[in-house]
């Protein structure tokens, strides 16, 4: 209760944390650096291009020479490629996994860099916490696994999902309906929301804890000894900062893992 009263005091004094009057304010181009034909170029857009450039640059410079005794960068590049190829591509999709390696690899590196922006000092903003990016990436995965499913199995792909052979006949309509909805409607949504919500939650926690820590300590002249609370919050925030590094890597891994599983379910639908 003491903390609540304290927080309202600080809010009045500093007006640092403010809610937009209307959600539409978020979509106006008030934060745009410049606009190109009605499209605003914001900090987020810049970070998207930066993440893409970093992904391409990392792969290009780490694997350019391919020397027999790898340097530091080449070891890192080969480690990432080997990890995605063996642990995600081949072990889940099977021998055909190599066909999807370029997609999985670029997906993994792009999401990983986008997530790690969250814990990069001076950037502190994960681009994957803007719904557009996870949604777009999950729709690409969606298109790939649906197209592959139709290409490999023809219309039996949908039929096998809607009429599962491994279930007793009486239950097949029900299970088939659930499977249809979960495969074609829920998969892209949950795939996108999982990444988005994890990063938003982390970003929110870091902003609240570190931000209020700084505000409290800065307001030491007004609130006196109560400013000590800010130190505690800042310490908790630093603990969560480390936790968020793990989350960033884990969520990139899980997104690519699920993409591979979905593609696998189209390549070998009987499993």
């Amino acid at each position, binding site marked *: 209760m003491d903390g609540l009263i304290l927080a309202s005091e600080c809010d009045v004094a500093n007006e640092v944390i403010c809610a937009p009057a209307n959600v539409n304010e978020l979509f106006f181009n008030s934060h745009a650096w410049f606009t190109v034909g009605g499209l605003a170029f914001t900090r987020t857009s810049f970070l998207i291009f930066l993440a893409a450039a970093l992904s391409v640059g990392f792969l290009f410079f780490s694997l350019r020479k391919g020397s027999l005794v790898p340097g530091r960068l080449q070891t890192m590049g080969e480690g990432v490629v080997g990890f995605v190829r063996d642990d995600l591509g081949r072990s889940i999709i099977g021998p055909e996994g190599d066909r999807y390696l370029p997609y999985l690899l670029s997906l993994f590196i792009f999401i990983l860099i986008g997530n790690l922006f969250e814990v990069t000092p001076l950037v502190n903003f994960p681009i994957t916490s803007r719904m557009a990016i996870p949604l777009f990436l999950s729709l690409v995965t969606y298109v790939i696994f649906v197209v592959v499913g139709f290409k490999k199995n023809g219309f039996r792909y949908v039929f096998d999902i809607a009429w599962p052979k491994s279930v007793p006949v009486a239950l097949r309509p029900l299970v088939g309906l659930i499977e249809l909805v979960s495969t074609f409607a829920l998969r892209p949504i949950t795939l996108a*929301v*999982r990444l988005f919500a*994890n990063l*938003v*939650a982390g970003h929110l926690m870091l902003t609240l804890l570190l931000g209020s820590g700084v505000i409290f300590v800065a307001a030491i002249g007004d609130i006196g000894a109560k400013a000590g609370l800010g130190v505690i919050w800042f310490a908790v925030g630093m603990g969560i900062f480390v936790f968020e590094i793990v989350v960033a890597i884990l969520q990139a*891994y*899980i997104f690519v*893992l699920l993409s591979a599983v979905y593609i696998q379910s189209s390549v070998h639908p009987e499993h």
Partner: protein
Amino acid sequence: MLEGNIEVLKGAIALVGYGLAAIGPGIGIGIVVGNAISAMVRQPEMQGVARTNMFLGIAFTEALALIGFVLFFIA
């Protein structure tokens, strides 16, 4: 303080809803990880498979809690 002001209650109800949505996945993730660990201890040679499937199970279970989290902002 609350007379007729439903807006005050709205955020609180959304918070309670998120809390309820987190119970099931919390238990579920506990079961998934616990069983994965006992599988890894019993058969260390299957560790890689167990770990991959553990993350898959966590991801599917966690989705429910995360949908609750997103609904908290939409509501």
